[in-house]
């Protein structure tokens, strides 16, 4: 039976990918950013922790999807996904391999469970998906895990509510538990934390709010479900809404969780970088 062994959240700031791809991780600006991933890199490498598959929740940033196609929740079921060309050529990272049997299983289970998924069989994946892989695994010749991509619309409003995302997480947990093969699965929620990439208010960072959010992933997760879009917008900037994707991860873990590791750093590009590792208590 497949088991959900841990949940990881991390920002997916494009600049992190740039620093890795261009060998700048030792520069002063980047050192503290990457220092916070060292614990996780070591932890995830250990055989008892390394997942076979990661269910990677991210958002597409106008790369695979454009104004002609806006799926609220999409699940990638293709065998593999190429890194997208976001305007400066594709990132020099390995192709992302799916566990397609498992992905189709998840897709089926979610639809039976009344989630109105869109199944995608051909797409490129942008920094939202590849940067977290780079942060956790560096620059391998091939990614050491299979990846099931779940893409969430957090660009065009209305985006799905935190509550709906939490419920999707719960349904993903049921789908994993229902998979007959022996598989070690992690779920990653990506994006956030506070940032605003537009307008005169750009550069907004709300450390207090972010830290409370990180605290409450263990201390009071139920509070997080009911945070409305307008609160993310006002308090954490127009792009802080990406944190609803962390709630899919947290909803999938269910019950009480233990915080194994936390990393928070300002700034990474325009963003308050957040990263946390959780496992069921």
């Amino acid at each position, binding site marked *: 039976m497949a088991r959900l062994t841990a949940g990881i959240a991390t920002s997916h700031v*494009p*600049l992190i990918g*740039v620093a890795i791809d261009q060998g700048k991780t030792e520069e002063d600006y980047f050192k503290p950013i990457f220092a916070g991933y060292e614990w996780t890199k070591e932890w995830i490498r250990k055989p008892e922790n390394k997942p076979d598959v990661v269910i990677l929740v991210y958002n597409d*940033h*106008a*790369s695979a999807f*454009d*104004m*002609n196609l806006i799926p609220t929740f999409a699940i990638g079921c293709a065998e593999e996904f190429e890194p*997208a*060309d*976001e*305007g*400066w*050529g594709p990132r020099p990272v390995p192709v992302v391999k799916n566990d397609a049997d498992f992905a189709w299983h998840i897709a089926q289970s979610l639809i039976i469970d009344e989630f109105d998924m869109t199944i995608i069989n051909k797409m490129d994946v942008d920094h939202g998906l590849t940067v977290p892989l780079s942060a956790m695994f560096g620059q391998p010749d091939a990614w050491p895990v299979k990846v099931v991509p779940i893409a969430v619309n957090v*660009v*065009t*409003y*209305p985006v799905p509510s935190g509550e709906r995302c939490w419920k999707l997480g719960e349904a993903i947990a049921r789908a994993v538990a229902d998979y007959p093969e022996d598989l070690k699965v992690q779920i990653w929620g990506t994006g956030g934390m*506070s940032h*605003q*990439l*537009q*307008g*005169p*208010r*750009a*550069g*907004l*960072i*709300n*450390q207090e*709010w972010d830290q409370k959010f990180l605290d409450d992933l263990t201390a009071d997760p139920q509070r997080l479900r009911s945070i409305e*879009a*307008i609160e993310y*917008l*006002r*308090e*954490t900037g*127009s*792009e802080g809404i990406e944190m609803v994707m962390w709630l899919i991860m947290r909803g999938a873990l269910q019950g009480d969780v233990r915080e194994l590791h936390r990393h928070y750093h*300002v*700034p990474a*590009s*325009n963003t*308050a970088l957040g990263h946390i590792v959780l496992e069921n208590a």
Partner: protein
Amino acid sequence: MHRSVSDYMSEFDDIPGTRVYTTRRARQGYWLNQFCMSLMKPENRERWRADEAAYLADWKLTDAQKEAVLARDYNRLLDLGGNIYYLAKLFSTDGQSFVQAVSTMTGMSVEDYKAMMMAGGRSPDGVRSIREGT
């Protein structure tokens, strides 16, 4: 559980210096954003760099949108329905980073903007709500 659309959207215009990418803006910016997407192809980037105005002529942008694109006036482009992740294809083609392009919208020099970020970023205090002034 049901909330009206206008109730949900009601406060989106109350945030200082922020344009929430609502469906209204998505519709207004349709061709502007689709034009930006076209720059994901290297061959299009080449044609674009060779003659920006000629390239734009193929797209159904309004004159105001075309002017703002040529001027790289990103605040204006947001007002005209642009979205930052689409516009990123434009400034990436220019070789600009997110920090460089985003700073142009703040009225600060890129150095001052970077310094603000290094110091912890822009505080939310006073820019949460136009109405409340908080």
